[in-house]
Each structure stands twice: as C-alpha cells, then as structure tokens.
C-alpha cells in the first residue's frame, strides 16, 4: 500500500481520512512517525498566542478607515462584458472588421474563373495553332448577376493600397509562375498578343 500523501496527512489531522487509508498507519512505521511528528508541531503552533491590541484601538481604527475613504467616490458597479461593445472604439473596430470582410469576399469573387462559354462565331484556326480565346466570352450576362453587383458596389471605393494591406493582391512573382505553367503554344500566343498590344499603344 502506498504511503500517505500530504493531503491525506492533513485529513488525518482533522479526523477526515477514510478508514481504509487510515489503516495504513497501523502497518507503516514511517507514516506513523510522520503523523505523530506533524501532530506535535501542530499542537505547538496551536498553542502560540498572539497579542491583542488595546480595546481602544478598535474604536480608533474604524474612525481612521472612515476618514481615509471620506474623499473616495462611491464604489461603482463593475460594468459587464457587454459594456465594451458600446464603446466608440469597439464600434469602429467592428465596422473595420466588416469592411475588410467585404473586401476579401469581393476580391475573392472577382478572381473566380468563370466557366468558358463556347464562342458564338468561332474563328477558324490554322492547323497546329492555338485557338483564339475571346477574353470577353461569357461576360454578357455579368451585369445581370446580382452577386457581381454586390461585389462591384463593395469595391467601387477600394484603393489598391487597402487591397494590398488586406493581403488579397497577387504576390510578387505570381505572374512568372503562371507563365511557367503555360504550354509552348500558349506562351507563343501570349507573346503575339503582347506584341500586338505594344504596337497598338505605340511603345
């Protein structure tokens, strides 16, 4: 059987140790000696007397305390946790959190790739060439899309710096990574489109 713990010795001192555990003292000399010694110490400690102040002390003490708190304001009831919500700082924090949430949702929605629609007038492509893709394909109905209307209204006043601060812009090098994932034919088509755009803009 294991020795008594400190808490069990304390219970034994106060007569609260269960009988099953108290029986250990009958068989264990070490625990029995420990119990006897701490009981003796407790007796010594209990017999220590502490001086009392003069009876006049109590009358003066109360008056001293009363005088000390005389200039204190009445104790105020501690506000509950909901009081924080009514502070101006909390209101602005909630508004800012909502704005960031809308920005993130809008930009995420804007970056979704729409399923490609088959072109109405597909251009006949030369054998082996990459079929041309109309970048505006499928966009005719976008203005009718209610979700897109929400996104547009949310980002109308969105500044680039705010979007970047929110972490929803393209990371540096992401364009390079995208180009590396293109096939050779796709890269050739991209180069042709860029060249045509540069010529058009006079660069």
């Amino acid at each position, binding site marked *: 059987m294991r020795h008594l713990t400190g808490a069990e010795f*304390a219970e034994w001192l106060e007569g609260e140790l269960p009988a099953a555990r108290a029986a250990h003292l009958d068989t264990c000399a070490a625990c029995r000696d420990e119990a006897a010694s701490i009981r003796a110490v407790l007796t010594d*400690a209990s*017999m220590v007397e502490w001086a009392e102040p003069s009876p006049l002390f109590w009358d003066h003490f109360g008056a001293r*305390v009363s005088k000390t708190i005389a200039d204190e304001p009445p*104790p105020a009831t501690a506000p509950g946790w909901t009081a924080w919500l009514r502070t101006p700082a909390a209101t602005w924090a909630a508004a800012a959190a909502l704005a960031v949430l809308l920005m993130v949702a809008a930009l995420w929605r804007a970056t979704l790739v729409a399923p490609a629609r088959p072109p109405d007038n597909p251009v006949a492509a030369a054998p082996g060439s990459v079929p041309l893709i109309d970048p505006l394909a499928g966009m005719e109905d976008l203005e009718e899309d209610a979700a897109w209307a929400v996104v547009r209204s949310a980002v109308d006043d969105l500044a680039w710096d705010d979007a970047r601060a929110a972490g929803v812009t393209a990371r540096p090098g992401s364009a390079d990574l995208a180009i590396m994932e293109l096939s050779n034919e796709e890269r050739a088509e991209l180069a042709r489109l860029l060249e045509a755009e540069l010529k058009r803009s006079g660069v």
Partner: protein
Amino acid sequence: MERTIPNPPWTAAAPHTPTGVNSSPETGPGERLSAADDRALVQACIAGRREAFDVIVERYQRQVYRLCFRFVPRHEDASELAQDVFVRAYRGLGGFKGDAALATWLYRIAVNVCLSRAALKTPPHESLDGGRSREHADRRIENADAQLLRGERAAAVRAAIGRLPDKQRATLILRVYHELPHVQIAGILGTSVGATKANFFHALAKLKTWLQAER
C-alpha cells in the same frame, strides 16, 4: 479519532447575518444598517451610504487585523495593512459579486495585501507589550522558568511561520489561527482543496524541520 483542531465557527456558505434580522436584499431609509446582512450593506455602500461601510469595518476589523498581525507581528504594520485592506475593499465593492461570503472576499484581499509586502519576508516577532501573552480567564499561574520556555518556544514558532513560503504560510495561518475550513481557504487563495491540504501538511513539515534544528 481525536481532533486536534476544533470545528471552525462558521462556514464559507453562510454570510454573516445578525440574529433576529430579516435578510432582505435592500435596506430602506429607516432600517438600521447595523442589523443588515452583508449583501444589504454592500448594496447600501454602492448606493452611496458610506455609513454602511462603517458597519462592515466594525463587523470585520478584528478578523482582518488579526490576520494581518499574524503576517507582520508588529502592531503598527498590522494596523496599516488592515487599513489598506478596507480601503481596497471599499474601492472594489462594485466588483463584489456575492458568489462568496463577504468575509471570504475580505480575507482574500487581506492575504494579497499581506503577501505583497516585502517586509513580511523577515519577521522577527515583537509583541505589543513586551512578550506578555493574551490572557485567558481560566489560565493557571506558571512558574517563571516555564513561562520563559513557553515564550521562547512561541517566538521560535512565530519566526518559523514567518519563513514559510507564501501560500503555505497563508494556509497555516488561516487554518490554525482563524479556524477556516480548507474549502474556504482554497477559495481565498485561489487553489484547490487538495492543494490547500497539501500546503498545510508541507507547512507543518517545514516547521517540524526548523524547530527540531533549533533544539
């Protein structure tokens, strides 16, 4: 089995209520504050009735002072600490939720105030009147040698108590000299009942070691 410590006089769940008083939660203008229960006194204080706090002080000043004196056995220091306890209690009354007895709450403040004082780490005990102990009505007259030995032993015990770690010292003082039950001590010190009992044992074990070394 013989009990070494008598039953504590009151429990943690029973707020102090003078006999013959209806413990109504609020006091009307005509109701004597001295007869009100602790909860009514707290509410009266918050309502701006300072005299209600005077009643609280009068009701608990002895317990608070004695606790402080057992941490700093010097009258002036104990008095100052006890006053600090009540000032802090007054300021914090608005936060007293009533989930514990007012006495437990005051004890908690007192223990924190006492333990925060660095001077408490170095007792030597100086009694109020040069070593004369508190008198009992039925005390026998002892011879001078026995009194001297008794006084020296008591001084050694007090000094040893002052050397204990904070929680062990607080636990021992609250249990032995204020006769509080372990569950209430646990609430005061913010520990579990098991930890309180263990602290009590370890405090006694340390006292045993130190006192044996002095013999």
